[in-house]
């Protein structure tokens, strides 16, 4: 059987309820948001225990903030991860399912790693205060290691996803099917490190934002805030440089016959990364002033790279004549409208608690109505 035929045969026979490009756009957008919070959780957890083990009052204070914010960021990463997980299964179901089933225990392990990482992070956050509690730093380390493991699982699923020509040979040895789900068939270490190093760049920007956000508060120590923002700017800058070097390493691992190096989406993605780097260079002297700009350009760069990632996926799968745009369509406008209207309503509803939290954090108080 020809592989293209097999891949199309694995698709869901009921088709998709709306145009595939729309799911693709939503998938890329929600993935970008998801990965930013993943970066914050991974980088934040590392910095939280790193600062915890350092001496100095500022370090301890920063550790506390990062531990606390990482719990929230990890929650956000989980919830935001649901959306791209859903959409990838709509348009790339053959690839996602085969890759996941082949390494089933790792996929299930992913959730165990994240859950335990979460609980360890909370233990670290709630118990770390005071000299006697220094041992709780271990929980921070454990949480970080588990998050790295979880990220590795996503790496292997995403890499195996792209290699349908190898699936059958992986799965079969003679007439025996490997149904154990414990085997890892492929992963890409450069790709993995590119994400992990970027975590520190995004966390650096987060620290800059922290310095800026609380700068108007009378009850906060200005020197401390400035120290955090400056440390963040430095962390962001150097991590971005390293991420770029790792990025080149990863790019070399992409088969040259795919001609991805000259792909306009990659070039745009790289350029956006360079712009972000320039903003960070400018930000070194006055990190608070550039905090919002850095955040904006970080987001744009991540979005650009997420788009390039999706384009590369299409290039890879194009080899097998797979295109999401030929997915059978069984249009269902009612349910599409249900989602879109709920989504708009959701944004309006969320604006309220977010505004309350923003005002409370930035100015330390709210008005009578709480807004």
């Amino acid at each position, binding site marked *: 059987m020809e592989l293209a035929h097999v891949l199309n045969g694995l698709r869901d026979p009921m088709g998709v309820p709306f145009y595939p490009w729309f799911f693709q756009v939503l998938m890329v957008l929600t993935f970008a948001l998801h990965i930013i919070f993943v970066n914050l959780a991974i980088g934040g957890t590392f910095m939280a225990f790193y600062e915890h083990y350092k001496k100095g009052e500022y370090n301890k204070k920063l550790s506390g903030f990062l531990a606390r914010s990482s719990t929230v960021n990890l*929650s956000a990463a989980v919830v935001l991860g649901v959306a791209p997980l*859903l959409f990838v299964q709509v348009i790339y179901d053959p690839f996602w399912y085969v890759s996941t089933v082949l390494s089933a225990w790792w996929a299930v392990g992913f959730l165990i790693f994240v859950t335990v990482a979460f609980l360890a992070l909370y233990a670290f956050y709630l118990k770390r205060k005071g000299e006697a509690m220094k041992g709780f730093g271990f929980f921070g380390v454990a949480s970080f290691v588990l998050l790295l493991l979880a990220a590795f699982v996503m790496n292997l699923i995403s890499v195996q996803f792209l290699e349908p020509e190898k699936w059958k040979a992986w799965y079969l040895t003679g007439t025996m099917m490997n149904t154990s789900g414990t085997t890892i068939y492929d992963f890409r270490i450069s790709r993995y490190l590119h994400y992990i190093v970027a975590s520190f760049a995004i966390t650096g920007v987060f620290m800059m934002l922290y310095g800026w956000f609380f700068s108007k508060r009378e009850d906060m120590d200005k020197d401390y805030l400035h120290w955090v923002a400056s440390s963040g700017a430095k962390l962001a800058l150097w991590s971005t440089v390293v991420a770029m070097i790792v990025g080149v390493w990863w790019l070399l691992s992409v088969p040259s016959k795919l001609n991805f190096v000259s792909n306009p989406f990659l070039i745009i993605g790289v350029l956006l990364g360079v712009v972000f780097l320039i903003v960070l260079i400018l930000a070194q002297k006055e990190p608070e002033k550039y905090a919002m700009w850095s955040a904006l350009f970080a987001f744009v760069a991540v979005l650009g790279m997420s788009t390039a990632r999706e384009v590369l996926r299409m290039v890879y799968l194009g080899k097998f004549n797979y295109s999401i745009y030929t997915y059978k369509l069984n249009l269902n406008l009612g349910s599409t409208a249900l989602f879109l209207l709920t989504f708009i309503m*959701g944004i309006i509803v969320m604006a309220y608690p977010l505004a309350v939290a923003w005002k409370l954090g930035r100015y330390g108080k709210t008005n009578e*109505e709480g807004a």
Partner: protein
Amino acid sequence: MYPLFEWHGVGNGMLMAIIATYHILPCHLATGAFWITYFMERKAYQENDMDMLDFLKKYSLLVLIFCFVTGSLTGAGIWYAATVISPRAISGLIHNYVWGWATEWVFFLIEIVTIYTYYYTFEKISPKAHMRIGLIYAMSAWFSMVIITGILGFMLTPGKWVQTGGFFDGFFNPSYWPQLFVRTAFMFVVGGAYAAIVASFMKNPDVKEKAMKVAAKWGLGGLVVGGVFTIWYFAKIPAVSRTIIFNDLGFTQTMFKIAIVAGVLLFIYFVIWGLKRARTASPITAIIAMLILFVGICAGETMREMARRPYLIPHYMLSNQMIDHDMKAKGVTSEVAKFDKTGVLPAYYFAPDSVKKINESNFMAAGRILTKLECISCHTLETSGFLSIPRLMVGFGAKTPSEVHDFLDALGDYDYMPPFVGTETEKRAMAAYIASLVDPNQKIDPAWVVAGK
């Protein structure tokens, strides 16, 4: 058809059962607890009761960590477990209900924003604003239930969807409203049981008594109303499902009894420690009551799951992930009809090419692959584990290939079992393999497998 995953010696069903059973705890608490928190907070502000606020703050953190975190992760866990056990079924559900899940996801977003804001703004913003945020959380958690109930109900009673394939035809299915009402009522029982735990920790006896009474009233009301709706629910599910639950399977009959006993015990608990002797309520009894409640809910959910047999998606996809009905509205034709004529193995890309045509030297390998394809989503091939095939065969007295073959022929007669799918030769190959699991030493005649005589 996808590659297969097998939890050797334990069973794939067990993986799903473990994750789904655990999920029941945090997910129900996440939807139920905040209604009571809201009303208790209101009362606390009205009566300027700072003790109560302290407790509510502590318990919101518990809800946050325990329910929100482990709830969302085990929720995703059910999804992952379904993916590795039955990818085609989760795919089918997603390709119908992607916008339903996406809509539910919007409510998850609202929940996460509100629960963290709620917790971190305790006593830092005006009571009115704080309670409003708590109420938004409670409502969005309930709305996520409104959505998921549509999909859960669809999986048992698809209604007009079978003909139309329409999203809302399946969503507002015959068991939707009764199930939503049952779940909503029990949500308040969960909330009441949760509030009883909070109350039992309170030091001020007056406050404790008041809080216990509130908790008990919610709990008792929910139990009575939920019980009535449950009767309505059972009336709305298909007759065959009722037969499976109440006649066919001893397991589900036991589950039903457990659910009833749990309900009665909880009723007694709320009456005694909630209304009569609220001052003596202790955290231990409150926690035991909560555990009893969850045992009851687990029993109920298990019954609902078993009642879906032999389907993963009713009147569409069997529990072996094969499509057994035409779905004209979506242009899908039955695979079972096709496979019965031309065979399962030739259509399975992930089967080795050497077994696609069964002969005297490959029939065991073919039988093994067929057995795994059609059975391991529920059964194990080892003598240990969940619903072990060799153990069941011994129980049914089917030990030789021809006895197993006759058993496979009769599979469709069991309400909860899908029929064997494939050609006669494939059926004999499967029978030969299964017989070899029961007794590895018996001699199997290859000519019988290949030619049937």
